C-alpha cells in the first residue's frame, strides 16, 4: 500500500503545542507526517512548499493559530493570504491543490491535530504519489546527457 510522505510546518505557539498535547495525551495517529517547527506560520515561504514537494513530499500541511490569536499579532492572516493565492498557482503548475492544506489548530486542540493528520494522510493516499522528485530528476538527468 502506498504510504504518503507529508511535510508539516507547525507554528511553535499553537499547532506544535497541539502536536505535543496529542503526544502527552497518547493519542495515536498515522506516522506519515514529519514536523518542522517554525516560530510563526507566516515564516513559511511558498518556496519551502514547492521544495518540499520536489524533495519527495506527497502532501504539505501548515498549522497556525486561530485568527485573532497569533502570537505575532497578524502572522496567520499573512499565511492565509499566501496559501490562498499559492494553492491556485499550485493547480496551474500541475500539482493538485488538495495536496496543500492550511489549518488553524490551537495548543489546546491535541485531539484535533491527531484527527487532522489521519484525515489528511487518507486524502493524500487517495490522491496517490506525487513523484515530482523522480520526474524532475529524470529531466535533469536527460539535460545533463
Amino acid at each position, binding site marked *: 500500500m502506498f504510504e504518503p510522505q507529508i*511535510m508539516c510546518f507547525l507554528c511553535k505557539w499553537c499547532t506544535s503545542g497541539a502536536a505535543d498535547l496529542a503526544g502527552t495525551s497518547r493519542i495515536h495517529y498515522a506516522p506519515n507526517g514529519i*514536523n*518542522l*517547527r517554525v516560530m510563526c506560520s*507566516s515564516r513559511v515561504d511558498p518556496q*519551502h512548499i514547492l521544495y518540499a514537494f520536489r524533495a*519527495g513530499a506527497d502532501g504539505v500541511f501548515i498549522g497556525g493559530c486561530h485568527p485573532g490569536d497569533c502570537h505575532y499579532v497578524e502572522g496567520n492572516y499573512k499565511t492565509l493570504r*499566501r496559501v490562498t493565492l499559492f494553492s491556485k498557482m499550485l493547480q496551474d503548475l500541475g500539482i493538485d491543490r488538495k495536496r496543500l492544506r492550511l489549518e488553524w489548530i490551537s495548543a489546546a486542540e491535541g485531539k484535533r491535530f491527531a484527527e487532522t493528520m489521519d484525515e489528511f494522510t487518507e486524502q493524500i493516499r487517495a490522491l496517490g504519489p506525487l513523484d515530482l522528485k523522480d520526474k524532475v530528476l529524470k529531466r535533469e538527468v536527460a539535460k545533463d546527457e
Partner: protein
Amino acid sequence: MKDKEPKKRIGLFICHCGINIAGVVDVEKVANLMKDYPGVSFSTNYVYVCSDPGQQMIIDTIKEKKLDAIIVAACSPTLHEKTFQEAAKLAGLNPYQIEIANIREQDSWVHSDKEKATRKAVKIIKAHVAKALRNESLQPIKVDVKKRALIIGGGVAGLQAALDIAEHGYQVLVVEKNPSIGGKMIQLSETFPTLDCSQCIMTPKMVEASRHPNIKLLTYHEVESVSGFVGNFKVRIKKKPRYVDEKLCNLCAECEKVCPQVVPDEFNMGLSFRKAIYMPFPQAVPGTYTLDVQNCLGLLPVRCGKCKDVCEKKAIDYDMKEVIFEEEVGAIVVATGYDLYTMQAIGEYGGEKYEDVINGLEFERILSASGPTGGVVRRPSDGKIPKHVVFVQCTGSRDTEKHNAYCSKICCMYTAKHAMLYKHRVPDGQATIFYIDVRAGGKGFDEFYQRAIEEDKVLYIRGKVSKIFKEGDKLIVWGADTLTGKKVEVEADMVVLAMAMVKADGIPDLLKKLKIQSDIHGFLSEAHPKLRPVESLNAGFYLAGCAHGPKDIPEAVAQASAAAAKVGDLFAQKELLHEPTIVPVNDELCSGCAICITMCPYQARSLDPEKGIAVVNEVLCEGCGACAAACPSGAAQQRNQTDEQIFSMLTAMLSEEEHV
C-alpha cells in the same frame, strides 16, 4: 542544493526516557546508524538524559570530544531546552548551538508501529543535524534602559502610577493637556459605594504628586511625537503658553474681576461661566491662573490688556510662546481617561433640545458643593428644585444596533448614587430609574444599590426609554415596564442620562503619535486579555485607567499600580536581554523594495533614506519570520532558521534514502 557543508563536530545524544521513547523507537539502532552520518562526530544513547548524571555525561563528552554543537533527541523542547542550554554553557558551548529533536511527544508517544516510529526518529534527527551544521553562535541583544517614565494623563490613574513609580526611586514626567491635573475624578461630588467626597480624596493625591521630588508635573502640555523603542524613547513635548507665570501668580483673582470675556465653564460642564483668564477650579494644581487665548479678545495686537494692568505680581506675560522640547524616557504609561458619549447621538432623548435633560457629569456638578448651584439640586432651565427626577441607564451602551455594543460598567452604580444623593437633598422628591440590568459587582456595591431601594425609596423600572419631550413645564418620559408588560409614561422635572463611556477626544491623534494599538472602540489594547492586562503589545507602553476601557476608580487605581509595577520590572533590569533569533538585513542582497517593512507588526523595519535599503531595529524585532518569507531577494533571513537551513532540513526529512 549543492553547497559545501561546513565542518562541524556535532554530538548526538538520544534519550531512552525510560521506555517512553525506547519502548517504541529502537534508540540503540538509531544511535549506531547516526555514528556514520556526515556531520555527526559522536553518537550515543542514554536512559535519562535530563537527569544529573545524564547532563554531566553531556558536559564531559562536549569537553572530551571537542564538540561544536549538540543534538539532544528526547522530549519536546518546551520542557528541557533551557536545561540543556545551561548544561552546554557550563561546557563552554554557545546556547544557540543546542538542538532539541522531539522524538517523544511527536513520535514515540503517538505512533504504535515501531519500525515506522524508528524510521521517523531517524528523519527527525537528520533534519536537526542539517540545521545544526549551519547554526550560528549568537549573543542575546543587550538594550540599555533609561530609568525614567513618562505618564500621559494627570487623572487618578495617571497620578497613582506616577506616585508608585516615583516611590520606587525613578524620575517621572506627567504630561497633562489641561491647565490642572485631576481628570474627571476631581469633577465628581461623591464616589460610590462609600459616598466619600471625591475632591477630598483626590486633592491630597494631587498635592502629593506636585510635591514629590521625583515627579515633574507638566500641565498645559501635550505630547507632540514619540520615537525610539522600549528603554529608549525620545518624546517631543509641547508646552502651551499659559501667559501667566505659575511661580509668580498668587491667586489674588484681580485679573478675573476685570476680564470682559465670559465663556461657558467647561469644568462645570457649561452650567456656569468663567472668564477668559481663569482658574479651572479652586483646588487646581498647579495653583495658578491661565489665559485662554482662544477666548481672549486678542493678544496680537493686545486688544484689552486689563488683566495685565491689575496684576500686582506682574505674573502676566503676553509674549509667552509655545515651546517644544525633547525628553528621553524608558517607559510610557498611557492614562488618558475617557469622555462621555454625546447626547446629540440620541436625538429622541432631547439632550440637545432641552436644558433639563443632562448627563451624569453635569449632575455631578449640580450635586457638588463647589458647583454652579452650591450643591443644591436645581434644574438648569429655571433653577427650580425638581420634585421628580428620572434617571436613564444604558444610554448609548449595550446597543448593538446603533450605538456602543459594550457595557460602560460604572453607570448602574453611579446612577444609584445619583438617585440616593438626590433623595438625601430633596427628601420629598421622587427618583425613578429606568434600567435593563443592575450591575453591582464590586465590594459593597450590591449593598449600596439595595440601600438606594430600601432606605431612599428609589423606584427602579425595568425597561428602555423610547422618547423624552417637553409638555409645558414638565418633561415627559415614555418607556416600558417589561416586568408588567406595559407602556409607561412618567412626568419629570429633570432627566439625567447615564451616557456611555467612550474613548477620550484626542485618542485618534495620540494613537497615531504613539503607534500603539487600540480596539475598534478606541480603547487601548492590552497584550493579553487575561494574563497581561496593563501592558500594550508594543514594548515599553503601559496602560492604566479608562483609556484601556470603562472602569471605576478602585479598578483604575489598581491598574495604575500594576502598570507602575510593570514599569518597575523594566527599570529593575540592568539592561534588557532580547532574543537574538531575529531577522537581519543582508545589505548586499537588499534592493530596497520595502515589502518587508509593511510585513512587520512591530514596525521594527524601516527604509534607510540614504542607503535605500531596509534596516531592522534588533530590539523591536520579535523574530516571527513574516518578512523573511516575503523577501523576494532572500536578503531577510531569520538567524538560525535561514532558508538554506530549512531546505537542507527538508532534504534530510524527505529525500534521503531510508536506512533502517
